[in-house]
């Protein structure tokens, strides 16, 4: 019985991914692509992805942008409002490491300095397919690609 319950839960969690999106000082580029991933051409709803209006309903937090000081505390608040189990996906070069804005005075170097990040989707902006791939990867756990050259292996 217990096995069945955990099995059911795991099955459900893989197939129902409700996301909540935070724009932490981004340029809109990534945000458009997230939204585009839900529209007919890409239709992330096929995979059970749904955008929800309140962080309390969400499983996955999508964060875009450079995380300026005004947004940092707010991002933390949102993160705390999401019920466990929760995952954070950083989207776009800005959210990963500051991107092209790296040396501006009002930006952070990646949102992982404020909240723990589970998955990184690079790109400026990543195309909708890349976002869909990322979400798929988050639930299925496909290992990271090896693009770093042999030096990194092992």
């Amino acid at each position, binding site marked *: 019985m217990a096995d069945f319950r955990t099995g059911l839960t795991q099955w459900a969690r893989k197939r129902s991914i409700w996301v909540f999106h935070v724009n932490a000082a981004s340029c809109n580029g990534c945000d458009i692509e997230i939204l585009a991933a839900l529209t007919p051409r890409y239709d992330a709803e096929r995979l059970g992805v749904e955008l929800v209006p309140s962080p309390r309903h969400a499983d996955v937090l999508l964060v875009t942008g450079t995380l300026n*000081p*005004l947004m940092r505390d707010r991002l933390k608040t949102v993160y705390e409002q999401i019920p466990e189990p929760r995952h954070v996906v950083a989207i776009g070069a800005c959210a990963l490491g500051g991107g092209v804005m790296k040396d501006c005075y*009002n*930006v952070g170097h990646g949102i992982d*300095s404020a909240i723990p990040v589970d998955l990184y989707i690079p790109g400026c902006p990543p195309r909708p397919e890349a976002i869909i791939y990322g979400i798929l990867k988050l639930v299925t756990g496909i290992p990271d690609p090896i693009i770093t050259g042999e030096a990194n292996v092992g």
Partner: protein
Amino acid sequence: MRQTSADLLSKLADKLGGTLRDGPKSTVITVTPDKAPEACIAVSSLSGLYHLSTITGIDLGDEIEILYHFWEGKRFVIVRTDVPKSVPRIRSVADAMPSATLYEAEVQDLLGVAFDGNPYTGRRLLLPDDYPAEAPPPLRKDADPEKIRKMMKLE
């Protein structure tokens, strides 16, 4: 659309004790800081020049240069004035020209020039409320982005 004649503008510049420089794309009227609001209002009340594109502040070292860009047809009419950095203060034009409100607030925020009479005086428009007081306004020459980032604990 007929353009406001250079004549009219140079008369205006004379009246305010300023100088006029006419370029292909822009006409620059340079005045002293106390005359600047007057000049702006005078320019903006010329028929085609009501549109204020923006207000720019530039740190020149000892002075802060403030430019009011008015747009008409194929050129800009720019009112230019230099505010000394020691007393960075100028009268606001926000009540006569409401469109200047946010532009002034921006210059105030980023360059630390006080616009007397602007509704945003004493409030932040762009910077975080806890922007370090000891750091200079970010667009001043002596502001170091690296240091500001450290002070705001962004690293």
